[in-house]
């Protein structure tokens, strides 16, 4: 009967279109994420090197100051100020070391996102492949069965993708993580 006919050609075109457009967008997303990873990594590497260099210079400066203090009698107030500066520097160094580690955490999150993007590309590719297997000459029931198979295949791939992507980064604050000794 005419009323039971599925417009297969149009459906196939729709699936191919969704697959093509979706894949194009995901390729852009993937490229942007990889570029972000690269820029972040380069920036942190440079920041890390600058930080080490500054720390080395400050440490040397403090050693020189210690020598000077041994030779010179400074007023107590100035000695106290120097001590406060030293404590402040040590505290900020600790904070910087913690902060510089966030590149590692964000890289892991980006890598996880890229894996998910790749999984989505595979899903879209499967969508187009299934669409290609449909023929306008096929019976209504046969096409309905193919659509059902397609749905099941997409479901199982989606579950597989989520199962393989355990979230390893749960950090929601900028502080350091917990410590537990067994």
């Amino acid at each position, binding site marked *: 009967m005419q009323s039971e006919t599925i417009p297969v050609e149009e459906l196939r075109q729709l699936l191919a279109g969704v697959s093509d457009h979706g894949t194009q967008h995901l390729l852009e997303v993937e490229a942007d994420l990889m570029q972000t990873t690269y820029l972040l*990594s380069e920036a*942190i*590497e440079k920041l*890390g090197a600058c930080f*080490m260099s500054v*720390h080395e210079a400050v440490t040397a400066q403090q050693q020189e100051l210690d020598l000077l203090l041994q030779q010179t009698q400074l007023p107590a107030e100035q000695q106290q100020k120097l001590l406060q500066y030293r404590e402040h520097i040590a505290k900020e*160094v*600790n904070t910087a*070391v*913690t*902060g*510089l*580690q*966030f*590149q*590692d*955490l964000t*890289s*892991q999150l980006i890598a996880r996102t890229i894996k998910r993007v790749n999984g989505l590309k595979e899903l879209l590719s499967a969508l187009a492949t299934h669409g290609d297997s449909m023929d306008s000459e096929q019976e209504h029931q046969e096409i309905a069965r193919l659509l059902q198979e397609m749905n099941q295949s997409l479901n199982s791939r989606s579950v597989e993708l989520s199962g393989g992507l355990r979230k*390893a*980064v*749960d*950090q929601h604050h900028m*502080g*350091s*993580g*917990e*410590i*537990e*000794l*067994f």
Partner: protein
Amino acid sequence: MAKTILAVDDSGSLRQMVAFSLTAAGYQVVQAVDGQDGLNKARDQVVDLVLTDQNMPNMDGLTLIKSLRGMSSYQKVPILMLTTESSDEMKAKGRAAGANGWLVKPFDPKRLIDVVQKVIG
């Protein structure tokens, strides 16, 4: 003589920060880029403490710990995990594999040094 710590992590910046913090506290640090590299370096030189990440290419942290615990020279060497993983399930796996402690990234240098001093002096 300075005690030696093997720091295993696939992130260069993380290894740099661990080495920076521990060296400043007077420890000697050997770095490894993944579990397999860590195992090779642990075979070359018996260290006083192993600090390892979990998620790494080639060999993960749990496999490294199991491999080390299978070596007679590493049965009593303290091993600490330093990872982004914080679930109880993963901690239980780490403990079962032979880890002595679990530190969640990012670490605070002072707290890291306190723990290391507590474990190996």
